[in-house]
């Protein structure tokens, strides 16, 4: 996706405020927007959550089916993560197969979940090498006002934590919750003229030079990172983002419960 264009006036406005240490919406540099999470929004999904991060609105659903495992992990369930930047959510999103932006989003969320070992995939094996539970996480952006990474990640984690494995319907005993071992949280910051801003709005993203997403686990350890955009970060900036993510992650984790 070509990055959306922004008027010079607006750009100058953001820069001018930043030079005074301020953000357009009055937040501090390390402050997230209002977060709301509505679990089980969609009944047809085994788990779901709708997350609002300010005006960014993401709906995540989890579908769980039986299927065959990958041949190199015969005793583990399968996690599959997909993101859809549907054109309903932004004038800059287009119809069609996932583009590089939705692929990056899906893969960054996927790595955060997978590398934190959030789900005990071994508990999703039914018959080794033959039948396992397949777990599809589909993330739909409904309204786009910046920081999709964190909104989608919160939605995915909340949806997974709300999900029941439909064992009864499949003749596999009683339904049970997805086996969750960890609650990872991702925090994303951007660098704009050497200022660091967490949870950027769309306008802030448009003027940002570099982006860093840091996913941490309950111990505060790093489980995944992704630097993005065409600009650079210094090592000090990276370290500051990591430390702040560890701190902010603790607060966000409480919201997920």
């Amino acid at each position, binding site marked *: 996706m070509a990055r*959306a264009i922004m008027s010079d006036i607006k750009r100058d406005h953001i820069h001018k405020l930043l030079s005074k240490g301020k953000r357009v919406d009055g937040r501090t540099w390390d402050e997230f927007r209002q977060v709301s999470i509505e679990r089980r929004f969609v009944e*047809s999904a085994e788990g779901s959550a709708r997350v609002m991060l300010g005006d960014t*609105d993401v709906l995540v659903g989890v579908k769980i089916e039986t299927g065959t495992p990958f041949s190199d992990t015969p005793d583990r369930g399968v996690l599959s993560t997909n993101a859809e930047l*549907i*054109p309903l959510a932004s004038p800059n999103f287009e119809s069609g197969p*996932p583009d590089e932006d939705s692929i990056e989003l899906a893969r960054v969320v996927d790595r955060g979940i997978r590398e934190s070992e959030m789900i005990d995939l071994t508990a999703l094996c039914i018959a080794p090498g033959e039948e396992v539970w397949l777990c599809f996480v589909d993330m739909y952006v*409904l309204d786009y006002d910046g920081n999709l990474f964190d909104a989608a990640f919160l939605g995915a984690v909340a949806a997974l934590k709300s999900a029941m494995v439909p064992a009864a319907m499949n003749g596999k005993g009683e339904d049970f919750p997805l086996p969750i071992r960890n609650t990872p949280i991702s925090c994303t910051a951007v660098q704009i003229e050497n200022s660091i801003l967490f949870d950027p709005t769309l306008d802030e993203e448009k003027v940002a030079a570099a982006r860093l997403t840091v996913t941490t686990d309950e111990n505060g350890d790093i489980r995944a990172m992704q630097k993005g955009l065409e600009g650079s970060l210094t090592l000090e900036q990276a370290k500051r983002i990591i430390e702040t993510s560890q701190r902010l992650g603790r607060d966000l984790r409480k919201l997920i419960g």
Partner: protein
Amino acid sequence: MEGKMIDENGLRVDGRKVDELRQIKIEAGVLKRADGSAYVEWGKNKVLAAVYGPRECHPRHLQDPSKALVQCKYNMIAFSVSDRKRPGPDRRSVEISKIISEALEYVVFTEYFPRTSVDVYIEILQANAGTRCAGLTAASVALADAGIPMKDMIPSVAVGKIDGQIVLDLCKEEDNYGQADMPIAIIPRTGEILLMQMDGHMTTDEFNRAMEYGFGACEKIYQLQKDALKRRYAVEDVEGLEEDVPREQQELEG
């Protein structure tokens, strides 16, 4: 299943009468980025519609120098149905997108905006029979919310047949065992039919009964559409100043 879907009191599996609609909730202006939007809960259906435009038409060879195109994309999200649906259009959604586009094109004053496109996106978040009607109903409200000049809004509803009886607005459980399904969309003021499909088995008499039910229901749905818009404007009046700020910001973006 013959004889099981309507009980001795003439009530259906969810307690409705044969000519009774499911509960319908319509909300206009629910999205920030879209030029217009609406959210519809219709029984267990959850539907979101958004409108962008009139805007430059892509691809350009589709541009019509005499009018705007109305291009609707109807889509079911992956987890809106019991078996996960692979993302991307299937043949069913392509057909539904086409007939909804045709219905909407009739009411939009397309000649006001030559060479442009009015893009309508309908996302079925949760599906429970009758999604194309809920989607078209939502799309009309979203168009109005976007301020697109139009003749009128289009309410839509399906009429079906179960246990040999004509029945309004089938829910999923009924639809699974239904003997006929006929989605329609009309302009209540003129009685013009803009969308009509049928599959199943109906006699001419049954068709006439079905149209009676359908026309009656569309009047009610139309009222709900208008109410949603009124509430939206009322809110705007109250919160006018606050609401204006983001609007101005949007203009700055050019």
